[in-house]
């Protein structure tokens, strides 16, 4: 599912792109799985966090990718703090 929201990429160096729920879901799922969460639980968490992010995005014409990551991380932390930590660290590990 794609909402009509432009995502401005990190640092503004790359072109903006439309919001993709699948991409958000996949990134949260990967964070959960990478901390050895069972697949079913990881899927459920990814769905719940994606839904929360989408409701936050309503009525916003454009947001930055960092905003999406920050809000997703905030919701993810309530479900799985370890996964949220890995999710936050992704861009600041190297």
């Amino acid at each position: 599912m794609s909402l009509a929201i432009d995502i401005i990429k990190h640092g503004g160096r790359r072109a903006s792109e439309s919001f993709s729920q699948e991409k958000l879901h996949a990134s949260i799922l990967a964070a959960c799985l990478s901390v050895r969460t069972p697949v079913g639980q990881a899927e459920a968490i990814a769905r719940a966090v994606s839904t929360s992010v989408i409701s936050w995005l309503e009525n916003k014409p454009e947001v930055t990718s960092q905003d999406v990551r920050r809000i997703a991380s905030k919701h993810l932390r309530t479900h799985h703090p370890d996964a949220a930590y890995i999710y936050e660290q992704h861009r600041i590990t190297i």
Partner: protein
Amino acid sequence: MTIASSLAIVALAALIHASFQLSVSVLTLLSGHVIGAKKSQAKVLRMTTSFVFGAGVMTLLLLSFTSLVLLHLFGSHAPLAVWAIGCGLLFGVGVAVWLFYYRREKGTSIWIPRPIAEYLHERIKATQRSAEAFSLGMTSVLGELIFIIAPIIISALVLIQLPALWQLAGIALYAVISLLSLVIIWVLIGSGHKLSRIQEWRESNKYFLQYAAGGGLLILGFFVYVYEILGSTIGGL
């Protein structure tokens, strides 16, 4: 210089090399991607093992190549000026590590050019096969060349003085010790530890590692300076 003290210098230089964190960061991210892509634990092990081997092979190649170049340029005894340059490099990189190694922000981002970091990010995401993981391991060693060049040059200067067999032993010793941190992370990931715990430990101890690496470089520089340069000049008077 005796064989024992030569190998001790090589071992200390390799230990300093092991405390640099780019390869460890790349290995952590790579294993996160592989686990996150629902791959089997066997696949995770194959990829991480290939990565560690790649880093080891590149370390061996770098040290061998540097030794060969120095051997061709200066023979088995480099002039004091070259030792002085090597010591200067150790002091300079040591101070630079103290001042700049980690970026002043959350996480474990290190002071390497951002295009290199972004390239590594892209390659980690694109890596699907063990051969790619192997080349990523090699690339990650090259990525931190700016920091590891000082211990590698000093080790090469020490190694070219040794008999051929001990040169090989010294190169192997350097490669094994410099891989210690990677091997520890590899074992932790292979035994099912959570990446979040590993990354949390790395983040909370990053300044310790930074000061240990910088301090190690200064100590090594001071020791080599006293042993090789002051020892030769005072002994020669």
